[in-house]
């Protein structure tokens, strides 16, 4: 789940003003931004109401299934073609991936209404935690299923660092030290808490920009394995 936070409203208004936009189409997202309560139907309607209160015209709105899905978003844009066409700009309440997918489907200027913050676990409704940074070089087999790259604020592979005190983190004081948690869980599983240090991370495996193509090389729709 991509976790997003609402962008400061004054900044959104400045973005629209910079575009000279008085007529706005709003797009949300039926997937992550709905779960994050930042770009689902209620939030899109709230933004609509607020823009209208402030004297702007909202030409229409949509919350498609998954805004970052190019095919789905093309359909969504076609459904709302007239409303988008009559707008000066499209305000997108979705993650950065969603904003760019929308931008690919229209010639209108597109502007973000959210900040994309992390790939998050849904701990409970309204509580999200980052557990994976998608580094491309997973170490969870060595770390008892707790990611040090993500959950140690310094991203240290071997720890704890010198700031750990009574099992707590020095950077985020109300957090338990990731490296203490890892070694505790290793011990609970009967595994050694002291082992060969993890080697430096291979950042060449972090695809930047990321692109994966698992389609069979010679066309057709046969099952293709992850490469």
């Amino acid at each position: 789940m991509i976790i997003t936070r609402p962008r400061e409203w004054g900044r959104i208004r400045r973005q629209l003003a910079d575009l000279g936009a008085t007529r706005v189409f709003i797009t949300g997202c039926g997937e992550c931004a709905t779960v994050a309560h930042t770009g689902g139907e209620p939030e899109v309607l709230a933004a609509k109401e607020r823009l209208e209160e402030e004297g702007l015209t909202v030409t229409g709105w949509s919350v498609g299934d998954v805004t970052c899905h190019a095919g789905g978003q093309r359909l969504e844009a076609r459904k709302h073609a007239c409303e988008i066409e009559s707008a000066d700009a499209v305000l997108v309440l979705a993650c950065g991936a969603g904003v760019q997918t929308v931008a690919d489907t229209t010639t209108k200027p597109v502007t973000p209404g959210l900040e994309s913050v992390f790939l998050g676990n849904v701990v409970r409704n309204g509580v999200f935690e980052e557990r994976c940074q998608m580094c491309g070089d997973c170490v969870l087999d060595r770390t008892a299923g707790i990611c040090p790259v993500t959950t140690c604020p310094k991203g240290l592979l071997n720890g704890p660092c010198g700031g750990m005190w009574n099992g707590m983190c020095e950077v985020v004081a109300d957090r338990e030290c990731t490296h203490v948690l890892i070694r505790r869980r290793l011990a609970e599983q009967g595994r050694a808490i002291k082992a060969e240090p993890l080697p430096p991370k291979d950042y060449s495996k972090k695809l930047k920009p990321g692109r994966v193509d698992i389609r069979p090389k010679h066309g057709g729709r046969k099952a293709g394995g992850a490469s």
Partner: protein
Amino acid sequence: MSHFRELLESGSFVVTGEIAPPLGTDISAMAASVWALASVCDAINVTDNQGATLHLSSLAASRVVHEMGVEPIFQQTCRDRNRLALQSDLLAAWTFGLTTLLAVTGDDPRSGDHPEAKGVFDLDSTQLIQMARGFNEGHDMKGRDLKGATDFLIGAAMFPEAEPWDIQQARIEEKMAAGARFFQTQAVFDLDKFQRAADVVHAAGAKVIAGILVLRSPRVIRFINERLAGLMVPDHIAARIERAEDAAEEAVLLAIEQARALRQIADGVHVMPLGLDAAVPRIIREAGIKE
């Protein structure tokens, strides 16, 4: 071989001090600190953007100390440099005549004066130690031969009082296995806890230099407890300084007592004067460590 290394490896009790490079290019105050400490210190640590706050680089400042005829302990953190920069700076350090390295993680930028900065942490301290050991063996991180190797005495940091101890012990052992030959510790307040750490270090044939803080005022103690990562002054010690008529004098007396006690357990003391540089010679002499 460096004099400091000779002393440490031959079993002499060593004394190290610490200076901070300036924020700027005027090194006169730093040089004055070096002179104040040099009469009793066998080597002086030169911090690397300590507390994640901007200072002249440890590399340049260590070189200055070296040129003054005093042995620097070149500190390198993993916070500000990726593995390319760390490697080239270590090679630079050796060509500058810096022979002792203290490899540490580094405080998080969020606790410093540039909280917007990206913490690099491409390597951690264990991996930095391994890298330096590789240099000593004549190869870089990729295993390629160096044209001219290094022979660093590699040190690491430890915090003997931090719990849980079993995990701290595992860390100490990992750092020694990676190549650390000596440790410098955070301030020691509890001798029993220091003893258990010293036992682990000595069992592997390495050395441990015990940290002593000169807690010169109640304000400094509050700063340490609130701001410094991984350090906590125990209440009974804080109360002693707070109650004293002359806090600075009491802090020096406390440091003398600590140094005397640690002399029986440690391989040296590392005095962090927190500005009271002039007190360091007195602490060392009155503790009976040096004439």
